[in-house]
């Protein structure tokens, strides 16, 4: 077995159970939007640790830079200017993979082992098994994975699974100068979030709360939001994300149903032949036409 910290709980396109006798603690990253200053140190740390260097882009008149996630930008700060209670608010959200407990990407992936979920909750892409179909993008409720034009493989935040495996916090957490990004067990992070939410409520943010959406079974990246009742204020963070019913139909119910239907048609044909026999030209008709030919 691999390192205990890399035990795999779920594996894409695999129908049998994963080794599951060892118990692992679920980890989580907590992003406290209310203490983020938008410095992008997390973006820089992510590039540095993972050795990815995106193209130098241009200025688009907003602070978002790069403008979107890409195969080489696994996390991006999204800046939103909104009005709340008659005041301008500048909301900054570090976007990236949410590491869903019920990951739509893994559910959709057709390539065995291209997407895994470690027992600690991290959802990781193993590009060496990726076939580049893009089904993970189709399955993701958060629009996270990106396919590289260079190698046709899908990429996204790994939650620094390599660092976490050896007891280190992800690079973004390590570098955050204000402590807006925290890392620990999921339980610890929820406790920490409670403490932050109390503080925000005391300062007048009545709707402050934790973003840990139950529609995807909870996430291993959670946000503390000052307006938890309106997550869409934060650059369209979805209100109630869940795996699309179309994706559940396609990669859930339809799979065994269609497989069994095709097997039934094939076996039905075989047994039809065996029980009813072939549909041959009648001897009578053959003889009749042979006689005619002889004339």
């Amino acid at each position: 077995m691999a390192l205990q910290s890399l035990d795999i709980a779920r594996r894409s396109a695999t129908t049998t159970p994963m080794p599951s006798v060892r118990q692992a603690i679920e980890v989580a990253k907590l992003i406290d939007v209310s203490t983020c200053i938008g410095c992008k140190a997390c973006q820089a740390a992510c590039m540095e640790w993972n050795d990815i260097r995106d193209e130098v882009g241009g200025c688009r008149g907003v602070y978002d830079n790069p403008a979107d996630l890409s195969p080489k930008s696994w996390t991006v700060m999204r800046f939103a200017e909104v009005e709340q209670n008659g005041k301008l608010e500048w909301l900054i959200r570090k976007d990236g993979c949410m590491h869903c407990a019920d990951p739509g990407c893994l559910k959709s992936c057709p390539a065995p082992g291209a997407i895994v979920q470690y027992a600690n909750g991290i959802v990781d892409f193993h590009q060496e098994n990726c076939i580049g179909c893009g089904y993970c993008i189709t399955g993701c409720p958060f629009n996270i994975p990106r396919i590289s034009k260079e190698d046709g493989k899908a990429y996204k935040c790994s939650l620094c699974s390599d660092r976490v495996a050896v007891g280190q916090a992800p690079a973004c957490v390590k570098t955050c100068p204000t402590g807006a990004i925290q890392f620990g067990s999921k339980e610890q992070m929820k406790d920490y979030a409670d403490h932050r939410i109390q503080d925000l409520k005391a300062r007048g943010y009545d709707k402050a709360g934790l973003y840990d959406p139950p529609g995807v079974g909870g996430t291993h990246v959670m946000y503390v939001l000052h307006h938890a009742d309106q997550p869409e204020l934060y650059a369209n963070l979805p209100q109630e994300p869940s795996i699309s019913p179309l994706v559940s139909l396609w990669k859930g119910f339809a799979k065994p149903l269609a497989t069994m239907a095709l097997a039934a048609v094939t076996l039905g044909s075989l047994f039809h032949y065996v029980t009813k026999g072939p549909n041959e030209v009648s001897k009578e008709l053959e003889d009749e036409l042979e006689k005619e030919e002889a004339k």
Partner: protein
Amino acid sequence: MIRNPRDLARYTAQERANHWMVGICFILLALSGLAFFHPAFFPLTQLFGGGTWARILHPYVGVFMAISFLAMFLRFKDLNRMTPADKEWLSRVREMVDGDDHNMPDQGKYNGGQKLMFWVLAVCVLLLFVSGLIMWRAWFHLPVGMVRLGSVLHAATAAVMIAFVIVHIYAAIWTKGTIRAMWYGTVTRAWAKQHHRAWYRQTTGDHR
């Protein structure tokens, strides 16, 4: 090489070549497509040089099949117009499946079942082509809602089409003397008289 000069020509060389272009594409598409649909079939990607090659090739083969199917559709569409006799044939298909064709109405070049097959497959190819383009990320970048709908439609239509093609292949195996029509183009007179009597009369002028 003609075995018997009295055999009847059923398909021209062009028609046969067209049919097998579609057939070969279909087999390649079904094998690679099933591999992406259910993990049980994923090993089939080995036939194409691995998962990534299967993913790259599948849509191009699909476009080629759509084009060759269109050519075949144009060749055969007039011969596949449904008539009242076809509807009667279809309503009594159970007798046929039971292996008793004595009371089946006389059929032209195609019977009702073959015509139904033709139209079902034509609709399937159209739906697969459109939904397949929607899913083809190498060339198209469409809203995720459309891609999800396209993916479900593509999988469902493909399952229907594979099932119908299995029936198509089985019907050809079941009805002895049929497959040669698609290999080298001819059928025996007795075959024609038994299975497609109206067509037999029309081609031979034998009205008994």
